[in-house]
C-alpha cells in the first residue's frame, strides 16, 4: 500500500460531510426518490388498503362499508369453487417448465458462435415487448375457426387445411383451449427467460470454456458441467417466477376467452367477484389469500431446492 492510499483512507471518515460526499448522496437520493415514490404510491399504499378492505364488506363505489373481521376469509376457504380454478394453473405450470427448458436450450445456442446471434436475440425477445392485448388479438385470429360466411379460418386452421386435415375449434373446445392459452403464454414470455439466461451464461469466464475445449469436452458436457452449474441461481429464480406466474395467470385467458370454456383462473374469479358481484371486500380477501399462497410456495421451493444442493 502506498503512502498516498493510506492517507486517503485516513481522511475518508473525517470527510464524510465533504462537498463531494454530500453531492454524491444527493444524487443517489434524487435517483431513488422517484422510483421509491412510485413504488409507495402505486404498490405499497394500494396493497395496504387491500388488506384493510379484506376485513370489510364494501362495494365498488366505496359505499356501505362495514367491518366484518375474518368473515371474508371464512367465505373464501369454505367455497371450494374458488379453489377449483387452481386446476387450470397446472396447465400453466407444465407450460412454464417446457418454457424454461426451451429457453435454456435457445439461450445456449445463441451464446455459442453462430451467425446473426444478435439478430436472433432480438427476434426471440420481441414478443415480450408486445402489449398483451395485442398478443391476445393476434392469437385469437391465429386460432380462429372460420365459418366461411362472416369470417375465414385463422392461420393455424389454414395450415391444417392445406395439409388436408379438418379444421379444429381450438378456442371453444374444453381442455384444448387451455393448451392453446399456455402456448400463447410461452410465446409471450419466453423471450424474457432467454435474455436472463443469456446474461447469466455470458457472465461465465471464457477461460473455463477454453480449458474445457483443451480437455476435449463436447458441447453437451460443457452444458452439463459448466453452464448449468454456473447459472444455477438464475434457473432457481426463474423457477420461482414460473410457479408464481402459473398461480396468478390472468391477462392472456382474460382477454382471449374471458375465462369461458373452462379456462377461468383464480385471478379472473377475483376480479369478477369485485367488479361483477360488487363484493370488493371478499375479492380483497381472495387476493390476500393468493399472495399468501405464493409466499408459501416460494418458501417451500427455496427450502426443497436448498436441501438438494
Amino acid at each position, binding site marked *: 500500500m502506498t503512502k498516498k492510499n493510506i492517507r486517503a483512507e485516513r481522511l475518508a471518515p473525517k470527510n464524510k460531510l465533504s462537498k463531494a460526499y454530500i453531492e454524491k448522496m444527493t444524487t443517489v437520493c434524487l435517483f431513488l426518490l422517484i422510483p421509491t415514490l412510485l413504488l409507495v404510491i402505486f404498490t405499497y399504499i394500494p396493497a395496504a388498503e387491500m388488506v384493510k378492505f379484506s376485513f370489510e364488506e364494501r*362495494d*365498488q*363505489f*366505496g*359505499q*356501505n362499508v362495514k367491518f366484518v373481521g375474518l368473515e371474508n376469509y371464512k367465505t373464501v376457504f369454505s367455497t371450494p*369453487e374458488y379453489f377449483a380454478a387452481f386446476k387450470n394453473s397446472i396447465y400453466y405450470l407444465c407450460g412454464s417448465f417446457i418454457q424454461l427448458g426451451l429457453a435454456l436450450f435457445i439461450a445456449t445456442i445463441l451464446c455459442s458462435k453462430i451467425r446473426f446471434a444478435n439478430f436472433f436475440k432480438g427476434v426471440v425477445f420481441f414478443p415480450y*415487448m408486445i*402489449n398483451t*392485448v*395485442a398478443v391476445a388479438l393476434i392469437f*385469437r*385470429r391465429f*386460432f*380462429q*375457426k*372460420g*365459418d*366461411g*360466411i*362472416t*369470417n375465414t379460418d*385463422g392461420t393455424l386452421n389454414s395450415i391444417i387445411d392445406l395439409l388436408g386435415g379438418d379444421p379444429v*375449434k381450438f*378456442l*371453444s373446445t*374444453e381442455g384444448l*383451449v387451455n393448451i392453446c392459452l399456455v402456448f400463447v403464454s410461452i410465446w409471450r414470455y419466453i423471450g424474457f427467460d432467454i435474455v436472463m439466461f443469456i446474461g447469466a451464461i455470458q457472465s461465465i469466464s471464457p477461460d473455463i470454456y477454453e480449458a474445457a475445449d483443451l480437455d476435449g469436452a463436447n458441447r453437451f458436457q460443457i452444458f452439463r458441467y459448466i453452464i448449468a452449474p454456473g447459472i444455477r441461481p438464475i434457473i432457481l429464480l426463474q423457477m420461482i417466477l414460473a410457479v408464481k406466474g402459473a398461480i396468478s395467470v390472468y391477462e392472456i385467458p382474460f382477454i382471449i*376467452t*374471458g*375465462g*369461458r*370454456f*373452462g379456462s*377461468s383462473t383464480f385471478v*379472473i*374469479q377475483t376480479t*369478477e367477484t369485485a*367488479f*361483477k*358481484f*360488487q*363484493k370488493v371486500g371478499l375479492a380483497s380477501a381472495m387476493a390476500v389469500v393468493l399472495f399468501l399462497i405464493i409466499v408459501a410456495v416460494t418458501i417451500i421451493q427455496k427450502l426443497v431446492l436448498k436441501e438438494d444442493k
Partner: protein
Amino acid sequence: MNTKLKRTAAMCAVLVMTGSLLTACGGTTENNPTADTTAAAGAGETSAAANGGETTAAAADSTSGLSGTIKVLHHRTDRDQDGTMAELTKGFNELYPNVKIEYQSFTNYADDIATMMQSDNYGDVVMTPQALKQADLPNFFAPFGSYDELSQKYYWLENYSVDGQVYALPTGGTASGVLYNKKVWADAGITSLPTTTEEFIACLKQIEENTDAIPYYTNYNAGWCITQWQSLVVGASGDPDYNTKLLTERTDLFSAGSPYDAVYGTLFDIYADPTLHEEDPMTTDWEGCKPAFAQGKIATMVLGSWAISQFQEAAVQVGTDPADVGYMPFPNSIDGKIYSVSSNDYMMSVNKNSSNLDAAMAYARWFCTDSGFAQNEGEISGLKGAAMPETLSSFDELGVQLFVENPAPAELIGKFDEIAKASEVDPWGDASTNYKFRMAEAAFNGQGREAYDKIAADVNTAWAASRDEILG
C-alpha cells in the same frame, strides 16, 4: 462510446414504443366542441358568451343567465367521434348561450365511472352507473325534484328515486325482442312470424335448409351479447309485476314453462344445434356482424331494440335496404297475445359536488326532455305520451303488447339486485361463471338437456338460499 450511444438509442426507442402502446390502450376520447359551436352559431347571444358572459340578450329567458363550464361523462364514444354530441351542444347553447359543455366518453364506462366516483371529481353530468345501489344515489347525485311530480312526465324513475326524490332522468329506453333480416326470412319461405318458441326454432331450421345464411348468430365472444336474452324474460312472462312476484311468492326462477325456462330453454336448443349458429362461437366479432347481417349473411340475433338503428346504419354503409332490418318480440305467446317489455337505457344524473349545479341540472333536464337524443337513436322516449320510435312500428302491426314494469313495493326496493349479487346468480351479469355461459357451453359441447336441468337446479338453489336469507 459507440455502443453507449447505441444503447441509449435503443432505450429511447423502447420508451417511445411503450409510451405509444400505453396511449393506444387508454380508451377515452375527449373533445371540446364548444369553440366550434360558438363560432358556428354566430347569433348575437353567442357572441355575448364569447365576450365573457355578460348577457343582455338573455333577458328573454330568465334561466339563460346560467354560465360556466360543465363536463359530461358518458359511454357513447361513437357519438363523440361522429359529432352527434357537438351537434347537441349547439341545440343547448341556443337556450343557454353561456354554458360551455365538455364531453368525455369512455369505452369501458361502467368500470371507469365507478373508479372516478371514489373521489368528488366525476364530472358534472354523468350517465348513472347501473351498479350503484339505489339507496346510495343521494350520496353522489343531486335531486331533480319530487317523484310524484316528475313521474307524471317520465318513465322508469322508480329505481332511481330515494325518499320521494328523483336522482336520475331517463335518456331513453329499449324494447326487448329479436332482430331479424326480413329478406332472409322471406327467402327461406317464412310467411308469418312465429308465435311460439317451437315455431321460432322451426323457422331457424327452415332458414338453414333454404338459404346460405347463418340462422342464428350467437356473438358469443362479446360476453355482453348473451345478456340480451335476459331482457326477454319479463316480456315472456307478460306480467308487469313478474320480478316483484318472484320475491313475494318465492317462486323458483326455473320450472317447467316459467319465463326463465321459456327463454333459456330456447337459447339452449339453438346453441345445442351446430347447424343453427356460427361455427366457432369464440371468434365472433360484434362490429363485423353488423355488415354481415345487413348483407343477409346472418338471419337472426337476440338484441334490444336499441340495436336497430345501428344495424340500419350498417345497411346504408354496405348498400343494402335498411328496411330489411326487422324486429319482432320474443315469440312466447300467453293466451294468444305476445308481450314485450320496455326498459330504460342509461339514466342521467348530476354530480352533487358540481360547482355549476344549476347549469348541470339544466343540461340534464334538457338532454332527457328536449334534445331529441332518444328519438335520433331510435330509442323509446323516456317522456310519457311521446310517439313510439319508427324502429318499433312493426310492433303495432303484430299487435304486440308493449308494457313497462310496475315499481316494486317500498319494502322490496333494491332487494332483487341484492339477491342477484349475493347469490352470484346475477341474471343480468356476464361473469364467466354465470348460468348463461354455463348453459351455452353445455349446449355447445353437446351435453344434452340433463346438463341444462342440472344448471337450472343449481340456479334455483343458490337463488332460494340468498332470497330467504335477505328477505328473512
